[in-house]
C-alpha cells in the first residue's frame, strides 16, 4: 500500500513539474496591462531573452516577462517621480534608457537599473538619444551637446562638435563608428567623438518638406539607423523620405516614398535576417516591398517598433501589441480565417432571405402554372335573371315571343385550353422577367456579402489602439454594407446576426 502511495505521490510531483515548465514556456499575450493611462514613448526587447519587453512612457520605464502571466511593472532604479523615457537602446551587456532625468542602465533581464549619467542642469540632464559602441563607450545626446564615457574611464566627457549649434536628434553606433543625426544632416566619428565628418547633407539633396504646412522649408533629418552586421549599410529618415547608403555615406539613394508619409516618421527598423525595411510613422507601421510601402498596421499615433521573434512589437500612444500576433497569424491562414464568421448567415442563407423578401422565388412561377392548369378545367359560369325571348322564323312569317322573367344558368368550357392555355404566353413573359429580376437581386446580394466579408477580414488582420481614419472609414463602410443587405432581405440579415451572437 505504501509503495502504491509513494508511486502516486511521485507521479503527482512529476506532473506538477512538467506543467510548471510548460507554463513557464508558454507565451502569454502582450497587452497594455500595467500601462493603462500612460502615454507610451519607447519600446525594446531584451537581447538575451525575447520574452522580456521594455516599455518606456512619459512616466517611467516598465518591463514585462511574456513567459509569465502578469502585466507591465515599473523597473526599479529609476527616479520615483514621473520620468519621461525618450529611448531604450541595447548595449553589449546592458539595456539603456534615455530619459529626461538622465541615462539609466540595467541588466538585459531587467533586474534593476541604475543611473549612469545625470546633471543638475536640465539641458544636460535630458537625454534625447543614446548609443553604445561594442567596446562599451556610451554616448548621450542632450540639448547641451553630446557626452560620452569610455568603459575604462569613470568620468563623462563632452564631445567637441563643429555642429554644436544643432541639436542631435538621433544616435547610432556600430563597428566602432558613432553617427549623430541633426536636422541638417548626419555626422560620423570614427575616433570615439574626437573628430567628426558630415556624411549626409539635406541641402545637397535639395530636399524640401512634404508637409503642406511647412511647404518651402528644407527637410529635416529625424532618425538614423543601420544594420550592425553590415556597418556600411545606413538608413536616414528625413521628413521628405528615407535615404540609404551601402558604402558608409559615400553615396546616398532615396528610397521610394509611395504609400509612406515620411513627414511623421518615428523609427526605421532593419530586419537582420532579410534586410527588410520597416518604418514606423504616425499612421502606423510600413514595410518596403519593391517600390511601394505596404501599410502593415494602421494606427493614428504609432510611436515606435521593436523586433521580436518573427514579428514586431508596436507601440502607439496608449497601447502595445505584437504584429502579427500568434493567434492572428493562425487566424489568417487557411480556413481558420473564415471560421470566426460561422455565426453569421452564409451566402446561401442570405440569398434565400433576399429571394423570400423580394417574392421572386420559383414557387411563384409554379403557382401561376398550376392556376392556369386548374382554370382550364373550370367552366365559364354565367347566371342571369331576365325575360326569355324566343324567335321563330317561318317561310311566310316571323314570330317573336317574349316570355316572363326567369333565371338562366350557362356553363361554358374552353376545351382548347386543355391543350394550350392562352395564359401560357403571359406566364412565360412574367416568368422570364421574374427570373431576370431574381438574378439581378442575387448578383447584388452576392457582391455586397463578399465585399462585407473582405472588409471584415481586413479589419481583423490589423490591430489598432485607437482607430485611424482609414479604419474608421472601413468600419462605416461595413455598417453601410450590412444596411444594404438588410434592405435586400427586409432586415432579416441583421436579425439573424443578432440572434446568433
Amino acid at each position, binding site marked *: 500500500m505504501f509503495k502504491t502511495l509513494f508511486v502516486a505521490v511521485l507521479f503527482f510531483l512529476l506532473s506538477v513539474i512538467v506543467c510548471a515548465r510548460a507554463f513557464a514556456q508558454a507565451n502569454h499575450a502582450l497587452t497594455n496591462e500595467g500601462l493603462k493611462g500612460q502615454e507610451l514613448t519607447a519600446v525594446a526587447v531584451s537581447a538575451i531573452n525575447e520574452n522580456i519587453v521594455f516599455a518606456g512612457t512619459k512616466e517611467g520605464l516598465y518591463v514585462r516577462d511574456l513567459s509569465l502571466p502578469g502585466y507591465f511593472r515599473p523597473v526599479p532604479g529609476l527616479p520615483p517621480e514621473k520620468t519621461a523615457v525618450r529611448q531604450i537602446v541595447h548595449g553589449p551587456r546592458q539595456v539603456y534608457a534615455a530619459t529626461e532625468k538622465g541615462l539609466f542602465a540595467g541588466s538585459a533581464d531587467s533586474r534593476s537599473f541604475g543611473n549612469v549619467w545625470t546633471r543638475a542642469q536640465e539641458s544636460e540632464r535630458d537625454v534625447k538619444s543614446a548609443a553604445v559602441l561594442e567596446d562599451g563607450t556610451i554616448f548621450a545626446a542632450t540639448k547641451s551637446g553630446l557626452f560620452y564615457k569610455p568603459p575604462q574611464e569613470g568620468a563623462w566627457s563632452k564631445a567637441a562638435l563643429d555642429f554644436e549649434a544643432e541639436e542631435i536628434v538621433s544616435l547610432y553606433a556600430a563597428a566602432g563608428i558613432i553617427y549623430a543625426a541633426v536636422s541638417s544632416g548626419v555626422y560620423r566619428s570614427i575616433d570615439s567623438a574626437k573628430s567628426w565628418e558630415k556624411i549626409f547633407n539635406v541641402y545637397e539633396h535639395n530636399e524640401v518638406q512634404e508637409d503642406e504646412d511647412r511647404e518651402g522649408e528644407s527637410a529635416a533629418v529625424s532618425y538614423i539607423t543601420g544594420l550592425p552586421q553590415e556597418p556600411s549599410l545606413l538608413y536616414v529618415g528625413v521628413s521628405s523620405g528615407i535615404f540609404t547608403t551601402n558604402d558608409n555615406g559615400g553615396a546616398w539613394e532615396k528610397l521610394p516614398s509611395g504609400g509612406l508619409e515620411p513627414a511623421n516618421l518615428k523609427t526605421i527598423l532593419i530586419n537582420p535576417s532579410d534586410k527588410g525595411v520597416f518604418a514606423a510613422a504616425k499612421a502606423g507601421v510600413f514595410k518596403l516591398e519593391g517600390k511601394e510601402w505596404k501599410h502593415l498596421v494602421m494606427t493614428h499615433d504609432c510611436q515606435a517598433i521593436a523586433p521580436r521573434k518573427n514579428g514586431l512589437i508596436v507601440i502607439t500612444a496608449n497601447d502595445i501589441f505584437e504584429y502579427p500576433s500568434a493567434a492572428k497569424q493562425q487566424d489568417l491562414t487557411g480556413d481558420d480565417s473564415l471560421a470566426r464568421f460561422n455565426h453569421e448567415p452564409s451566402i446561401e442563407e442570405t440569398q434565400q432571405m433576399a429571394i423570400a423578401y*423580394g417574392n421572386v422565388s420559383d414557387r411563384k412561377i409554379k403557382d401561376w402554372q398550376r392556376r392556369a392548369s386548374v382554370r382550364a378545367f373550370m367552366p365559364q359560369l354565367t347566371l342571369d335573371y331576365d325575360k326569355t325571348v324566343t324567335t321563330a322564323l317561318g317561310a311566310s312569317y316571323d314570330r317573336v315571343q317574349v316570355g316572363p322573367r326567369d333565371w338562366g344558368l350557362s356553363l361554358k368550357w374552353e376545351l382548347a385550353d386543355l391543350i394550350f392555355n392562352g395564359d401560357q*404566353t*403571359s406566364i*412565360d*413573359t*412574367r416568368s*422570364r*422577367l*421574374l427570373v*431576370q*429580376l431574381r438574378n*439581378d*437581386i442575387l448578383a*447584388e446580394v452576392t457582391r455586397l456579402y463578399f465585399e462585407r466579408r473582405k472588409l471584415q477580414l481586413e479589419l481583423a488582420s490589423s490591430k489598432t489602439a485607437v482607430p485611424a481614419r482609414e479604419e474608421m472609414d472601413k468600419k462605416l463602410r461595413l455598417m453601410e454594407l450590412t444596411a444594404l443587405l438588410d434592405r435586400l432581405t427586409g432586415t432579416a440579415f441583421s436579425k439573424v446576426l443578432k440572434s446568433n451572437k
Partner: protein
Amino acid sequence: MIVDDEADVREYLKRYFKRRKIEVITAESGEEALRIMDTQQPDLLLLDVRMGGITGVDTLKKIRERGNQVRVIMVTGVADEELLRPLKNLDILACIHKPLILEELEKEVLQRCSQP
C-alpha cells in the same frame, strides 16, 4: 412610365429600374396613362401594344393628337403587321418584342433618355 395591363410585368419592370435609381410610374391601361399624362410628363414611355380597353397604338394616337411629343418605345408580344402599321406615323423611338431582356431594355432606356 410603363403602361401594361399585366400587374406582374409592371411590378417587375418598376423594381428593376428602381434598383438602378430610375424613377418609374406605371399605368394599367391606356386610359389611365392618358389621365396621368395630363399632370405628369415622363421622360420615356414604355407602351404595351396589346391591352384591355384601348390598345397601345390608339393610346399613342391620342397622345400625339394632344400635341405631346413624349419619347415612346412600343412593347409587343406579337408581330402583327396590321396592328403595328399605324406606328410608322406616330414618331416612336423603337419597337421591342417580348420576351423582354431586362439588361437590353435598360440599355435602350438609358440610351434614349440620354439623347437630347
